[in-house]
Structures are given as C-alpha cells and as structure tokens.
C-alpha cells in the first residue's frame, strides 16, 4: 500500500498543473479501487470534474487555476485523508458564477477606461476651441512715433487684424509726422500670411497726372510746385487693404486715427527738426499757421492738434474712399494744386486704383525674402542678397572684407535699381526683373567684384541718374 501511495504521489508530482498541456493529460486515478458509498460518491464527483475539465480547453488560465484549486485537494483526500478534508463537495458549478463575473468585470473596466478616455479627449478638444488660450499669441507693432505704436496695439487688443493695426498706425503716422507721410501721399504695403505662406503687395504709389508733360516740368519755376504733385494713393491703398484683410469697420479705424488728430499729440523731435530745416519761404499762410504758429517753429514736446485733419478722416471714414476720390475733397485738392501751377484733374482721381501684386522673392541662406516688385526697387534688393550669398560671408571672414564686399555689391544693386520703372508702361521691365533676381545673374555680377580694390560705381554697369533726396 505504501508503495502504491508513493507511486500516486510521484504521478501527481509529475503532472504538476503548471503546464496547460500537462493538465489536459491529467492522470485518471484508478477507478477500479474499492471503497463503498463514499468511494462511489467520490468517483461520481471525479467524473463530473473530468467532464468539466474537458470543457475548459478554451480558457487555459481559468483552467489552470481551477485545476489547481479543485484537483489537488481532491487528490490529497484520496491519499487517505478525505474524511478530515475541510473541503466539501458542492452541487453548484463553482465556475459558472465566478468565471462570468470575471469576464464581465474586464468588460466593465475596459468600457470605463474607454469612456473616461473619450470624455477627457472631448474635454480637451472643447478647451482648445472654447477655453482660454494656453499658448498666448503675441504681437508687435513698430512705428516712427509712440502714439502710432500705441494705436496699433490698441487695434490688436480690440481683436483687429494685423492689417487693421497697420492701417490705423499708418494713418496716425501721417498725422504725427506730416512731413514724412500722410493721406496726400502714397506708399506700399506688404502683407504675408504665415500659415498659408501667401503674400500680397498693395501698391498705392502716386501716379502722374494725365495732363503732365515733361517739357512743362523742365521749364517749371519753383513757384509751380503744383506740378510736382502726383495723384495721392494713401486712402485707396488703405481701403484696398481693409477690403482684403480688415476685421474692424473702416469707419472705426479712421475714427481711431481721427481721435489722435482731434485730441492732440506731442510734437516729435523729428517734426520739430523738419520744421526748423524749412528753407523755402514761399509757403502758404495755411502752411505757416499749421507748422509755424505765430511765426515760430514747432518745438518738440509741444501739444499739437489737427482738427482739420480729424474732420477729413472722419468724413472718409463715414463715406468711404470715394469721398477722397470723387467728392468735395477731390475738388479742393484739384483747386489747390492748380493754384500752384499743377495739372491734376477729376479724371486723375477717378482713374486711380491701388494695385495688388505678387512680391519678388529669393531664398537667402534658407530664408525666403519677399520685397515689392517694380516700380519699387525690390528686385535690386534681391539681387544684392543673391550676390552676397555667393561671397560666402561668415563670421570667420574679417569684418573689413565683409564691409568692402557689401559696399561693392550695393554699388551694383543700386545701379540695377536705377534701370527699373513702372512695368505697366514698359514691358521690358518684367524681363529685366526676371534676370535681376536670378541666381545665375548674381553669379555673373559677383565676378565684377575685386576683393582688394574698390572700383568707381558705374564702371561695369552705367547707372541712371537718381535724385538724391528724402524720398
């Protein structure tokens, strides 16, 4: 009997329920063993167990655990201790409840996790769109005068677009520094959309009057300054920019600029200096009243108000750009220009339009450079950068060499610029521009530069005359 018992123990040990495949071949205990009612009962239970075990093939884990729990004690009881075993046979299937519960629990956990993750994701998305920004978008404004910079910032803070801010600031600049710009002048705006990588140039440069003649200009005396006046483009340019990119209302923008003129501002050092440098003495009384009040030049820091300009801006704000180009203001400008020998007419104003163009561009050291096309000198700037790029300027090169190269390059670029003009009046300008901005042309021009000797400008390319002035 002892030998038989030892044999059974070793058999059980050999079929340790660690391995699933081992378990599936679990040894059957000898059925022929005698044992009375208890033995019969045990045998019946064993058969039920075996039948059950056969059904668990699909779930190895639960099978292993249940086998460990059920089979081993049962086996031990058969080894002579079944009467004292604390385990009791149960008629209820012990797996049916627990097992299904465990599966349901896993489902609940997964469902809960998915629900939680979905909720968090939705909350984050809503936070991005409706919540306070977590990354604060900055902005910057730079102008020639403090009040104009402040006005630009004010417009941005009012949720105005960058172009809105630029319009308000540019109009303000014409009020604070009337010697440099204003609605009687013109200019150019470059707008770049960072996200779309798109750029537009709004050209509101002045145009020559239709009745202008070069011969008249040549013979004009100093008294006929009216001949120097081109059709102003500032209001058209700002209006065009606003139509394309504006967010605040046109009247609000002009109202903000008018407020500066109405409420007054401190005379800038630059304006005061310009007034003191006035050489010509034949300015009108109106001019003198404005800039030389009581015969004295304006001083920096003095409070200056321009209610006349404020009313004009308010009018243009209320009635739109047409108030400037086909209204009483137009007649007033024409009349005043004619008083000074000029030739501006209503046709000049009604035909004026700000032009929207593409900028010229190049890639300089991994950066895209954008600048206005002709009649602006953008292509010459591009050419200068293309030439300099090939000179391989680095911080290792001596500063003196760098300055020499820059000076020689700029001579070439300025010479090229002097050959530009309005492409609408000369189709060959476009071809010149294409050549001017090309890298291959830059390579050719670079060969003209001598590393050790400066050459007179125009030695290689003759420049055209350019008035050396403030424009």
């Amino acid at each position, binding site marked *: 009997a002892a030998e038989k018992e030892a044999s059974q123990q070793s058999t059980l040990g050999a079929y340790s329920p660690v391995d699933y495949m081992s378990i599936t071949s679990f040894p059957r205990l000898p059925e022929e063993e005698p044992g009375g009612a208890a033995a019969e009962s045990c045998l019946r239970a064993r058969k039920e167990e075996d039948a059950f075990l056969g059904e668990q093939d699909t779930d190895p884990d639960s099978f292993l655990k249940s086998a460990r729990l059920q089979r081993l004690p049962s086996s031990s009881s058969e080894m002579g201790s079944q009467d004292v075993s604390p385990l009791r046979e149960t008629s209820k299937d012990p797996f049916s409840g627990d097992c299904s519960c465990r599966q349901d629990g896993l489902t609940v956990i997964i469902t809960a996790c998915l629900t939680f993750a979905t909720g968090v994701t939705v909350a984050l998305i809503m936070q991005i769109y409706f919540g306070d920004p977590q990354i604060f978008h900055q902005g910057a404004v730079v102008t020639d005068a403090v009040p104009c910079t402040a006005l630009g910032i004010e417009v941005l803070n009012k949720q105005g677009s960058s172009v809105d801010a630029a319009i308000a600031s540019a109009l303000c600049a014409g009020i604070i520094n009337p010697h440099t710009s204003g609605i009687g002048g013109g200019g150019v705006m470059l707008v770049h959309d960072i996200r779309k990588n798109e750029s537009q140039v709004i050209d509101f440069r002045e145009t020559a009057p239709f009745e202008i003649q070069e011969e008249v200009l040549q013979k004009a005396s100093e008294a006929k300054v009216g001949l120097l006046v081109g059709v102003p483009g500032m209001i058209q340019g700002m209006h065009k920019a606003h139509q394309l990119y504006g967010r605040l209302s046109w009247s609000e923008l002009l109202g903000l600029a008018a407020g500066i003129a109405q409420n007054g501002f401190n005379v800038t050092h630059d304006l005061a200096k310009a007034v003191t440098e006035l050489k010509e003495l034949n300015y009108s009384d109106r001019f003198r009243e404005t800039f030389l009040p009581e015969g004295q030049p304006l001083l920096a820091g003095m409070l200056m108000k321009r209610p006349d300009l404020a009313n004009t801006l308010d009018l243009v704000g209320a009635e739109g750009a047409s108030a400037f180009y086909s209204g009483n203001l137009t007649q007033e400008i024409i009349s005043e220009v004619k008083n000074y020998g000029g030739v501006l007419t209503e046709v000049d104003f009604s035909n004026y339009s700000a032009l929207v163009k593409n900028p010229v561009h190049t890639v300089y050291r991994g950066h895209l450079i954008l600048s206005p096309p002709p009649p602006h*000198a953008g292509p010459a700037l591009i050419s200068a950068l293309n030439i300099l790029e090939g000179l391989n300027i680095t911080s290792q090169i001596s500063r003196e060499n760098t300055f020499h190269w820059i000076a020689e390059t700029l001579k070439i670029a300025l010479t090229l610029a002097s050959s530009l003009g309005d492409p609408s009046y000369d189709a060959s300008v476009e071809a010149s521009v294409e050549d001017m901005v090309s890298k291959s042309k830059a390579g050719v021009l670079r060969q003209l530069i001598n590393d050790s000797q400066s050459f007179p400008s125009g030695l290689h390319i003759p420049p055209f005359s350019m008035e050396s002035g403030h424009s």
Partner: protein
Amino acid sequence: ASQVLVMGPDDYIVAVVSSLNRPFGSGIITPSGILLNSQMLDFSWLNKTSNHSSLSPRNLIQPGKRPLSFLLPTVVRPAEGMCGTYLCVGANNGDKALSSITQVLVNVLTFNKNLSESLSLGRLYPQLQSNILQVDSEFPQEDIEFLEARGHHVDKVKVVSLVHGARRTNNFIIGVKDPRSVDAAGATIL
C-alpha cells in the same frame, strides 16, 4: 518715409512704408489739412543739373505712370516649413533704404545676430553719382581706415537711414526700433 511694421496674433506680417517725397511734400496744404506730395521728383526728367545720358528711359514721366520707388517693406520667413525666423523690416531715406535693409538682413541671417544688435550696428551707403561711401556715426573708425585703404572715399554722416524691424521666432515676437531714432517706438503684446 514713415514705416509701420505689425506682426499680429492672427499670424499675419504687415509692413507699410509711405511717403510724401520731400519733407512736407510739395508744401501745398488744402483747407482740409491735407499736405500734398511731391512725388513727380522721383521720375527721371531732365533738369538743369543732369544730362541726357543719365536719364533712365524706363522711369521717364508719363501720364498715369508710377515713379521708381525705394520704399521697400521687406518680409523674411523660413524657406521650408514654418519653424524658424520671421522678420519684417522697413527703412527710410530713399535709395539708402535698400543699402540699409541689405545690411540688417546680413546681420540677422548671416551672422545670426539678434535684431536689436543688427539694427544698431553701423551702416554704409555707396553714393553712385559722387562715388563717395557714406558711413554713419556708428561705423567703427578702424573699419573706415581699412575701407579707405581699399580705395573707398569715405564720408561720415550722422544717419544713413532708419531701419525698424519686428522678429518672430516660434511664438516669441519682438518689435524693435532703430536706436538712432528718438521718436520711434516698438511695442510687444505679451
């Protein structure tokens, strides 16, 4: 010329340069307070001081035509992708603007100097007609001597041109005025 540079939270860069030509333009002021320009001076036309050979045929005055301009609002962005340096600059003082903008761009993009330093460094301008190389008051004396040794006729002036700029690197934006200007101002929204 006056300059306005804006880099807004809407991811737009705007540069505006406008002018009346001479200071106070033509000097004509209307009853509504509008000072009128003298922009016809930017055309190429024969006057007492110039000769026929130096006239630019493409910039001759014609009705409805726009004159050659050195108003150069300039924008810089990374050539590829969106990460990197964005820049906008403007300058005044006629053709000196071209010269000054070039030098500021070289300082920022070649020497990797910050914008403030790039704007404050001395600048030069080669005057074509007189063949004189103008340098501003910030230009180092030793460099002037070297340029003279290479045959440049150097003339020192107080200011060649005022250049303002704004720079954006990722979400950091800064507006910087030319330190030579007393009145200009750059402001940044934080």
